[in-house]
Every structure is written in structure tokens, then in C-alpha cells.
């Protein structure tokens, strides 16, 4: 087969890779992208998008359940039923539309997409195993965007009833008993969704708290909701292995017991995909388990870039997309480097948890003299009308010049506020900028303005 020569080769068509390829195409670079599966990577196929679809269904189902009989808001209806097969089919339809859309965008921008598995021969040459044989691609520049995969527990490998989030999105029916190992955001998002769909969910976490990346004030409303959904959370407990239709665990007190589980969902983190694509044929410096990059996403070999999950935390699609866009522009000759102030992070739990910039603790550790205040949704009219009074918005700012360093929120639907939080941080807003911006009434966003006012010492509605 003929050798394909190009200016840029992107390996992996996840959110980092496909964005890099689209932008490169826009800039007129001769670009090839290689992907073994459907376009869109983890995010579109088995991550962000399908899980949000399932969570939406779970929320709707919970509402309907809530209305069965009497409800405080006056609606009553019959007991709802769920046909999860139909849910999955609907979800698959969304995924298909999106992945197909990515394919269309790549095509529109004249990116050549090859379906197959790429393996480096050297820093400029990649062999791609396609269904029709091996193709060789030679490129001036290569972007490694291979992503990450779910971490497997050695004593309880995936298979059968031990599943990762990928399989959890394709179940035929909600498991009667679901054990979730790991109380990080993926475990809790899925666990809460299945609890709403009627599963009896037990979460097993080795640490002594849920969502360990967030402070206790932020996780408390989530823990409260989980309790009301009848979820059991075993903290300080270790999973030992699958035992029949159950999960053997060692509790905090050292007691060995078996919790019933038709499915065991293991969500103990994600690992960068650094093997299987010929890394051994390159001389890449590593940064722990990740590929080491500089502030232009350059790896340690000339013309080799890496973006996304394979380059480190936070493993978030929007970080990968921003990196991909930047690298395409760098390769096109533009002067760019990583200059982002904040990468907001969201847990689509119930309620949602959102953090952008520095937490009060992080700001202190970074040496800032800070002021910080929260504004609770219990004092926000719109939150009351949506039955979403749990949670708050919190702002951390520098004491000397009131520059906003971080914004956090917990509450129903706060994920959408990430846009204004990110904008405020990226624009270098001071507390006075947020306090002086009219926030439409009645919205949850008013709590953002009030949090700024309160940090300045003159909140109006509390």
C-alpha cells in the first residue's frame, strides 16, 4: 500500500484529537486522524454524553416516582415503569448523532480519517492496522491523543457481573442490587442514577469520604441526597472480590462481609492509555504514568505533541479540547501557549457539584490572603420554586485586590453556571465585577451575585 504523507497526524479521535484535527483542517494543514473505534472517544461513546443521557432518564423517572401517589406540588400519577432497553436505544441514538456529526465535521474540514489501530514505528512514522491491511502514515507532526481507560482491580477484573462504566451504560434492566466500588464522581453519578431507577445501591469507598477531591461542605448535600435515595455508603471499606451474587468487602472495623450485588460497578479511577501503540519505539519522557509535556503540549521529541488524558490530570474532555485547539494552531505557526486560568470540573451527581479555579484551601496553600463567603440556595427564590434548596455558591477572592480566585457551587442544575464561573475567572473578574453585573431574576445565578456581595460584606438577601 502507498505511504500516506501529511503535515499532521492525530492519533485518537476523542474530544482532544478530533478538535485538534478540525482546527488543523481549518488552518489548512494537511491532516490525518486515526481512530480504531467510533469518533468521539470515551466522551461521546461511553463517557460524558451517554452517562448524562442515563442520568437524565433517571431524573425523569425519579420525578415520576415522586408523583406516584401524592406530592407536595400537587401532581399525582400512577407508578412509572422503565424499559431500560428502550432507554439505551434512545441514548445510542444520541451517541450516533454526535459521533456521526464529528465524522461530518472532520470531512468538512478536509481531514482524512482512517479507521484502525495506530502503532508508532518511529517519531514520524505510524503503521495503522485497518480492516484492509496495514497503512503507513508519515507525518511532520504527530499529536498523541490516546486518552485513558477505566482502571481494573487486579483481584476483580472486568467481565461477567463485574463491570466498568462502559457496560453500566448498556444494561438491559436496572440491577436489583448494585454495588459500586469507588465513590469518585463516576461511581456516584452512575450509582445515584441507578438508585433513582430502582436499584438498591451500595457504594464501597476505601477512603473515609465521598468525592475526595471536593471539600466536605460541597459533598454534604450529595451525601444527604444519597441517603434519601436509600443508598448505602460504606466508607473506609475495601472491596475484596466478587463472591457469587455479591461483593465481599472488609469494613472499616475489619469485618468481612458480603453485600448482595447483581452487578459490581468498579469505578476506581482512569489510567492513561500509554501502551499498545508503540510508545516503546519512541523516546518520550514520562511524568509519572503520563506523557510529559510542556506548556505547548510538546512531548520530549521534536514534532511530537500529546494532549488530553494521556498527559495528566484533570482528565476532562474540555481540557483536551482546549489543548487540541492550541496545538493545531501552534503547528500552523501561531504563537500559543497554555495560559488558561481555570478548568472547571463538574460532578453530575444529585445535586450537581461544580468547581472552577481555586478552593479556599488551595488558595491559602498557594499563599494568597483570601476572603471567602457562601450564599445558600435556601435563600434563593428560583431554587425554592424548583425544589432545589440544597447547596450554595461560594467565592474565594484575594483580600488585597478582590480578584476572584475560585468559585464553587453545589445544587440542582448548577452545572450550567460553569459558563459564567469560567468566564469570570478567565476575564480576571474582581468581586465588584460580579456584584455589579445584573443577574436576571429569578434565577439561581442570583446566588452568584449574592455570594460576591456577601464576600464584600453586603449581601442583600440574607
Amino acid at each position, binding site marked *: 500500500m502507498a505511504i500516506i504523507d501529511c503535515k499532521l497526524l492525530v492519533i485518537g479521535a476523542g474530544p482532544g484529537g478530533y478538535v485538534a484535527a478540525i482546527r488543523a483542517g481549518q488552518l489548512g494543514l494537511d491532516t490525518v486522524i486515526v481512530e480504531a473505534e467510533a469518533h468521539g472517544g470515551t466522551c461521546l461513546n461511553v463517557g460524558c454524553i451517554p452517562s448524562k443521557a442515563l442520568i437524565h432518564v433517571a431524573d425523569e423517572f425519579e420525578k415520576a416516582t415522586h408523583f406516584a401517589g401524592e406530592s407536595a406540588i400537587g401532581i399525582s400519577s400512577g407508578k412509572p415503569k422503565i424499559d431500560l432497553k428502550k432507554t439505551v436505544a434512545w441514548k445510542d441514538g444520541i451517541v450516533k448523532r454526535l459521533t456521526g456529526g464529528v465524522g461530518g465535521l472532520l470531512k468538512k474540514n478536509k481531514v482524512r480519517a482512517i479507521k484502525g489501530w495506530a502503532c508508532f514505528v518511529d517519531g514520524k512514522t505510524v503503521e495503522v492496522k485497518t480492516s484492509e491491511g496495514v497503512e503507513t502514515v508519515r507525518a511532520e507532526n504527530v499529536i498523541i491523543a490516546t486518552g485513558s481507560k477505566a482502571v481494573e482491580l487486579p483481584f476483580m477484573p472486568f467481565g461477567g457481573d463485574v463491570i466498568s462504566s462502559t457496560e453500566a451504560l448498556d444494561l438491559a434492566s436496572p440491577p436489583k442490587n448494585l454495588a459500586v466500588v469507588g465513590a469518585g464522581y463516576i461511581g456516584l453519578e452512575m450509582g445515584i442514577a441507578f438508585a433513582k431507577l430502582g436499584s438498591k445501591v451500595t457504594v464501597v469507598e476505601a477512603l473515609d469520604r465521598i468525592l475526595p477531591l471536593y471539600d466536605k*461542605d460541597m459533598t454534604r*448535600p450529595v451525601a444527604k441526597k444519597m441517603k434519601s435515595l436509600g443508598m448505602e455508603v460504606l466508607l473506609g471499606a475495601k472491596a475484596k472480590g466478587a463472591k457469587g451474587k455479591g461483593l465481599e468487602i472488609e469494613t472499616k472495623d475489619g469485618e468481612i462481609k458480603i453485600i448482595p450485588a447483581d452487578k459490581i460497578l468498579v469505578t476506581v479511577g482512569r489510567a492513561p492509555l500509554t501502551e499498545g501503540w508503540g510508545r516503546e519505539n519512541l523516546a518520550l519522557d514520562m511524568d509519572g504514568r503520563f506523557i510529559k509535556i510542556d506548556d505547548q503540549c510538546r512531548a520530549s521529541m521534536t514534532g511530537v505533541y500529546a494532549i488530553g488524558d494521556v498527559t495528566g490530570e484533570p482528565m476532562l474532555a474540555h481540557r483536551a479540547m482546549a489543548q487540541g485547539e492550541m496545538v493545531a494552531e501552534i503547528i500552523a505557526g*501561531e*504563537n*500559543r*501557549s497554555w*495560559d488558561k486560568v481555570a478548568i472547571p470540573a463538574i460532578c453530575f451527581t444529585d445535586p450537581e457539584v461544580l468547581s472552577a479555579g481555586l478552593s479556599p484551601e488551595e488558595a491559602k496553600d498557594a499563599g494568597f490572603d483570601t*476572603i471567602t*463567603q*457562601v*450564599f*445558600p*440556595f*435556601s*435563600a434563593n427564590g428560583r431554587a425554592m420554586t424548583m425544589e432545589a*434548596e*440544597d*447547596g*450554595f455558591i461560594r467565592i474565594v477572592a*484575594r*483580600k*488585597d*485586590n*478582590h*480578584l476572584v480566585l475560585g468559585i464553587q457551587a453545589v445544587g440542582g442544575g448548577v452545572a450550567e453556571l460553569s459558563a459564567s464561573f469560567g468566564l469570570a475567572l*478567565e*476575564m*480576571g473578574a*474582581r468581586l*465588584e*465585577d460580579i456584584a*455589579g453585573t445584573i443577574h436576571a431574576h429569578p434565577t439561581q445565578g442570583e446566588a452568584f451575585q449574592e455570594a460576591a456581595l*456577601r*464576600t*464584600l*460584606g*453586603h*449581601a442583600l438577601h*440574607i
Partner: protein
Amino acid sequence: MGEYVIKLPDVGEGVAEAELVEWLVDIGANVREDDVLASVMTDKATVEIPSPVEGKIVWQGGKVGEVMAVGSPLVRLEIEGEGNVKPGDEPVPAAPKEPPKKEEPKPKADAPKPAPAKAPAPKTNGASSPMPAAAMRPEGEKPLASPAVRKRAAEAGVDLRRVMGGGPAGRITHEDLDAFIASGGETGARGTGLTRNMSVTETPVIGLRRKIAEKMEASHARIVPITYVDEIDMTALEDLRAQLNSDRKEGRPKLTLLPFLMRAMVKAVADQPHLNAIYDDEAGVVHQHGAVHIGIAAQTPNGLMVPVVHHAEARDIWDCASEVGRLSEAAKTGKASRDELSGSTITITSLGAIGGIVTTPVINHPEVAIVGVNKMQTLPRWDGQEFRPRKIMNLSSSFDHRVVDGYDAAVFVQRIKALLENPAMIFIED
């Protein structure tokens, strides 16, 4: 639960106050018995104040740099069991500078609305921002700019770290960037790498630095110095020193110039005892000392310190050498005691190793004389028939002219010169 007050203890004889130089624990910290709470500095020695009890710090009696009276409350602790402050007891004087922090009520969804929060609000409004308009960015701080400004800067090759931010909180606006480019501001393309540094660093003068400042001020304000410089031919002494060093017994220190100079000074002040003296200018009395306590000015990581070799008149050259070695090490590592840092009657200062031909040493008040050593170098000197290479060193000495006349100063220096140029005389009893 009780409250326990720790007062600033008597940290040295005749010390009425001490400067707080470091807090080792913060408010809210739990301390155990013997944990060090703070360092205070008296005269020149630093003393650590340990906690006699176990408890939690709830109040601190001063800020770093503050001078506190002995006996004034230093910290208040919350302890298990009974404290040493009973209700009705003498209250702790002075309102706490920082009231114990009041926790803001945390929002609880189910709880009634928290009362209006009286947050300690820094008063600000749009017009008077807490930062000056065209703020200078402290070194190392990231430039603040919107993504659009950042992008334009990148395209223009401007490093935003070099651009002053005129916006709120020092934000760099499009106008700032325009002005920078219009003024021909250094862009990446030119890349001279040279930039104007607009930083101003404020360093509070505290601790040892303040002590030094006070000493220097006292010296300058009171003393009328006369400085006298002469050159000394060190060739013979250097030969002798080399000989002594190469033949020295095991365990003996290597000799530097200092012990020779010290012994020469002991001899010189024997002839002119009023130069080895403390002038109490308030009482109008000069105290001539029989003992020759020689201060040795030493540079330490924290600044100038003057450890003292006591009773140089009773030490031979080897003893002087080992004592100088021991003291300078102690001073450099901060382990010198108060006694080792006080009591000098005359002082030596040496910047010789660095270079310089003349210095005007500042007299270590209330002493009346200081001898400064300059750099030794090999120079041609006329011996009557020809130029010969000689090891020449200047001695720059200052004297308090209020009580020492120029004539006396000259006689003293000439005596030391004679001794150093004929080193055998240093070792001969008069």
C-alpha cells in the same frame, strides 16, 4: 477548660524588653508542653520561648517586629483543666489585636436563615479600588488579562509579563496593550531579554537587622570618629605564620592573621590603656579595662554579629586562634550565647579577604577604638637599593576623638605596625 496566659519571661539579666522575631505557632494551633511558641531577641541573642503546658493558642500578644516588655502576656492558651487566669483575676491587659475569629454560620438547608452576616468588609467601591490604578505587579505574579488580550499579545509577540496592567486588580486591558505596543515596548521579536524591573520590595527592618541599625545609629550620633590608616609590611609575619602552620602540633588550629593582630593589640593597649575602654558618655566617665575583650566583627547569614574573645590578655596565640574559630562558627550557626556576643572592650573588623585598600570602620559604641584589616597584596617597595616584592597590608583604624586624640591614635597604630613588622616582638615579654 481553662485559660492559661504565658508571659514574656525574663530572658536575660537586666533585660527589660525583647523584640518578637518569629511566631512558630499560629492562632488555633495545638501545642504540647515544651513546644517552642516564639523567638524573641534581646540585645543580640535570640531566645526561644517554650510552652510550659499543653493547649490551643487562642491569642497572640504581638506581631513580629514588635518590642515587648518582659512580663507582658505573650500568648493565651485554652487548656484542659484549670488555667492560670480566674474570673475576677487581673484581666489580661490590652485588647487583643486580633479578636478570636468568629466562624460565619454555615448555610444549613433546613435551618432558618442565618442572621445577616457582618462580614469584615474591606470598604471598596468602584472608584477607589484597593489597588492603585496603574499597579505594579509583584515579581512572580501572573499577568492578569482576558483571553482576547492574551491572544492579541501572543500574536504581537508581546510577553504580557512586561506589560503594566491599568485595569482593576492590575488587569491588562486592550488599551494597556495598545499603549505598550505604541511605545515601542519590547516585543518578543526584538528579544533583547532586558526589561525594566519596576518591582519594589519592602523588607521590615526587624530582628538582628534592627539591632545593627540601632547600634550604628548610636555610634554615628554620638561618636566623633578619627580614622587613621597606615600600611604594614607583613612579609616577616607571613613567613613566620607559614612556618608555624606547617610545624604546628596535631590538634592545634591553623593560624590566621587575626591571632597575631590580637596579641599585638594586647601589647599596644598595655601602653595606652585608655584605648581599651568603655566611654559612658552620659555619665562622662571612661572605664579603662584591664581585661582585653576583643570583639571580632563577623558576617553571618543574618547580618553582622560581633562575637567576643574574652580575656585576650590571658590567651596565647593558639588559644586566641581556636577561640576565634569557635566563636565565629557559633555566630554563623546562630548558636552564640548572649555572653559570647557581649562585653567587648575593643573590636577588630576585617573585610580584607574581599579587597579594598581603606575602610572607615564604625566604632562599636560605647567602645573607643576599632581596628580594621584591609587586603594584603604583594607590592614593590623600595628598600634603599632596589624594589622588592613585599606583602603589604593597610590597617584602617577608627578612634573616638572625644576621648582619644589623633596623636594617641597614631602612636597606637604605629606600635601595632612595629609589632606586626617585627613579629618576634609579639612573643617577647616586655
